């Protein structure tokens, strides 16, 4: 049995029907084809599946798609437009080498985006506290924290186009 839903993802409206047990992360990856959001632990520990639901960071492996109906979701694909530029937090990860294997990165970017929308100049301690729900198994936390600090210090990002390099 399916249930009708209407969800806005990265500004695009999806009106469809889903099996009520469909987790939001699977809807995003399989129905919307937005595979930037990763499934990590699948037990709401690791935060790789973090997306914004009405602007708040949530773990999409622990939200039913039907719970998000009539609401707005933003995934990592919704950060920078296709022709750039990167958002400050994305640019921060580039400038400060905020990723190693990259698996946790979409979740880190979304958790960091939520943090900076709430506190535009966080202390290192606040950054670390806000990333409590995101694990990096490369243990690259130092550079992730620095990347978010870079974004806080450069709220206008960098005036370069994606692909141009620098």
């Amino acid at each position: 049995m399916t249930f009708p839903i209407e969800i806005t993802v990265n500004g695009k409206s999806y009106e469809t029907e889903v099996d009520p047990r469909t987790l939001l992360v699977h809807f995003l990856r399989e129905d919307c084809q937005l595979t930037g959001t990763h499934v990590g632990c699948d037990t709401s520990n690791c935060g790789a599946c973090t997306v914004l639901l009405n602007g708040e960071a949530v773990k999409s492996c622990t939200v039913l798609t039907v719970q998000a109906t009539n609401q707005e979701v933003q995934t990592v694909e919704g950060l920078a437009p296709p022709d750039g530029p990167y958002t400050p937090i994305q640019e921060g990860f580039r400038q400060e080498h905020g990723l190693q294997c990259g698996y946790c990165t979409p979740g880190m970017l979304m958790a960091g985006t939520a943090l900076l929308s709430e506190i535009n100049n966080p202390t290192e301690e606040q950054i670390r506290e806000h990333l409590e729900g995101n694990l990096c198994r490369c243990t690259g936390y130092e550079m992730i924290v620095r990347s978010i600090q870079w974004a806080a210090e450069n709220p206008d990002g960098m005036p370069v186009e994606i692909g141009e390099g620098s």
Partner: protein
Amino acid sequence: MIPAKFDYKPASSAEEAIALLTEYGDEAKIIAGGHSLLPLMKLRLANPEVLIDIGGINDLSFIEDKGDHIAVGALTRHRLVEQSDLLKQHIPLLAHTAGHVGDPQVRNRGTIGGSLCHGDPASDLPAVVLATRATLLIAGPNGERKVEADDFFTDFWETAVAEDELLMEIQFPKFTGQEWSFQKFNRRAQDWAIVGCALQHSDNPGIGMINMGTTPVRASAAEAALRSGETNSDVADLADDGLSPPSDIHGQEDYRRHLSKVLLGRALDNS
């Protein structure tokens, strides 16, 4: 992991949720934020045939000053509890502890009512409900009733909320003193407490213990010692008195007994 199949019934009011509960009985479960229930459903530890979603009932999300107490709606998310100026002022132990539940993403979704109805002895907020001597307002087909914190947690993952009832709000008596403390011992930032304790120190002190039994429990012996003016270390020595902490992968019973005394000692020294 994907939960087993279920029928999904969103409720637009508490009355509708109770009517659905009455119709489906023990086949149904209420879902609010889903951060206790969905993990259980993914592991097949819970297999409801009907899921009644109360997430859209905005009337159940509130924090209101009612004179002698603060009423917190069951659907109020941890984040709102954590950030509430009213709670920081009148029940600081609750606001502080809500900020230690899970991690930011969990606190954005999880609700106070959902956490309490889950009845997990390892959860943080039940200890606060015990320490603050809160009253829980429950609604069912025959109207509303009040249950005291001591009567709410009935067994492992079991509460006083019957299968056709809904937790509506939690009433926290205003705390007038300054002395309170929340202590949680875990090995990683977002983990459940191996042991924890919530303390409100007043004429009638309250001490709720985390993970020290099959239900959230009160440290009654320590409370009595505190009331009669014994020293902090003597009170802390009674933290586990009469309690039966579990042994599991995170710690053996004797380790938990030790931790409970250390943590209550810290709570008393910090409060």
